[in-house]
């Protein structure tokens, strides 16, 4: 009996180690970017204040640049507004424009309080949450309107977004002014470039061409700037191009972001899950 107890005493650390390690590995194996984002969203409820303080200090240092960007953007929007006013006047004259109610997209802004670049699964923490009308699956854009990521988890006061620099990130992209689209993803190598894969061989991408979202994805409006073609390579079977795209958003200097939600998407989703649709699918 004493020997048995001694034997157990001598190996219980090993057993404990093996059990804990297996538990940790299985938890990791069953996790996805979504569980990781949820975990971060939850711990942000505790650490959020501290994060906010450090982000505030950092943001202060970039105020000048931020201001310049905003001013540029205001100028651009001002120009667009002028164009729209002109169009509106013309339309009213033609009695052509019908009332479309509120715009299709809903916008919000947020400050970045946590941002990593040096991992494979990079996530952004934003200081706005459900309380401020942020919802899961909202697109995240840089202040200049280029693609950054999309929201995957929200708490009351914070949101966590999947950065474009996350190997789980997927969306559709295309070369501007063409109809050839491919999928945008990150290969985990360079935080300044992403990949536009499975692009048709007829697209013939040239360095410097703009790459924008194709609007096929649920998260982003069409024609959001992603970046510029850096280099392109035909794959071995010569059926499609793999294009390296230089990101337009400066991921390492992201302080403020714009969030965008498609109002119609929720309406469409509600419609797709409505009873009538379900009845018909059940019949077939």
């Amino acid at each position, binding site marked *: 009996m004493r020997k048995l107890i001694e034997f157990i005493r001598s190996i*219980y*650390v090993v057993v*404990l180690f093996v059990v804990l390690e297996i538990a940790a590995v299985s938890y990791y194996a069953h*996790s996805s970017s979504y*569980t*990781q984002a949820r975990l971060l969203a939850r711990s942000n409820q505790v650490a959020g204040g501290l994060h906010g303080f450090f982000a505030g200090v*950092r943001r202060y240092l970039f105020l000048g640049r931020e201001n310049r960007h905003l001013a540029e953007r205001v100028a651009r929007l001002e120009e667009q507004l002028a164009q729209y006013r002109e169009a509106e006047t013309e339309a009213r004259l033609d009695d052509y424009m019908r009332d479309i109610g509120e715009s299709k997209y809903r916008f919000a802004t947020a400050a970045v309080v946590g941002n990593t670049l*040096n991992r*494979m699964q990079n996530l952004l923490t934003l200081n706005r949450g459900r309380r401020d009308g942020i919802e899961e699956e909202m697109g995240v854009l840089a202040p200049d309107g280029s693609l950054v990521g999309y929201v995957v988890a929200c708490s009351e006061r914070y949101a966590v977004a999947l950065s474009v620099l996350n190997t789980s990130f997927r969306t559709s992209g295309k070369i501007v002014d063409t109809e050839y689209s491919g999928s945008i993803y990150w290969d985990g190598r360079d935080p300044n470039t992403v990949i536009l894969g499975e692009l048709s061989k007829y697209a013939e991408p040239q360095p410097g061409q703009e790459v924008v979202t194709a609007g096929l994805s649920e998260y982003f409006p069409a024609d959001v700037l992603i970046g510029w073609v850096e280099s392109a390579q035909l794959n071995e079977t010569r059926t499609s191009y793999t294009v390296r795209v230089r990101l337009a958003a400066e991921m390492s200097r992201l302080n403020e972001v714009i969030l965008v939600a498609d109002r119609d998407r929720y309406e469409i989703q509600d419609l797709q899950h409505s009873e009538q649709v379900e009845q018909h699918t059940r019949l077939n």
Partner: protein
Amino acid sequence: MYRTLPYLGLFAATVLLQVFLFDNLSISVYLNPLIYIAFIALLPLDAQPATLLGSGLLLGITMDCAMGAAGINTIATLPVAFFRPTLAAMICGRENVREGGIPSPERLGPRKFFAYLFSLTLIHHTIFFLFEALSWDLLFHTILRIVLSTIVSVAFCWIIARIFTAKLPVRV
């Protein structure tokens, strides 16, 4: 356990440094120093294996919650805590380990302390980055990340060890 208070301070300091400084540095994809491993490395030489394992678990879970990385820190810190007594005995000799004391350049001599710190950090970083990449495609890329991050982490852990042991007598 003796010296609970300084170790609580060390735990808080390494976790806060990691979360609020090193995770925000974002110098390069290849440089991701994980300096919180200094906490495990600096636990007393004669600490019980179960204590080490418990500390490793606590540290891993804390970092997982703070980083939003489901389990990967725990996966990496547990083996470090588990193999630490064996490694310490191999590098510094059983007598030294039995005598106890805080591992530091003064206590073990710079060369032995470096070997001890480097091997612990290397184990930790190897497991961490391999599990993060989860593929053999980018093996060279991952190895580069492991090596560069280990070097930087060891340098910072060395500084932390010097600061932590500056006010404490070398032999407890």
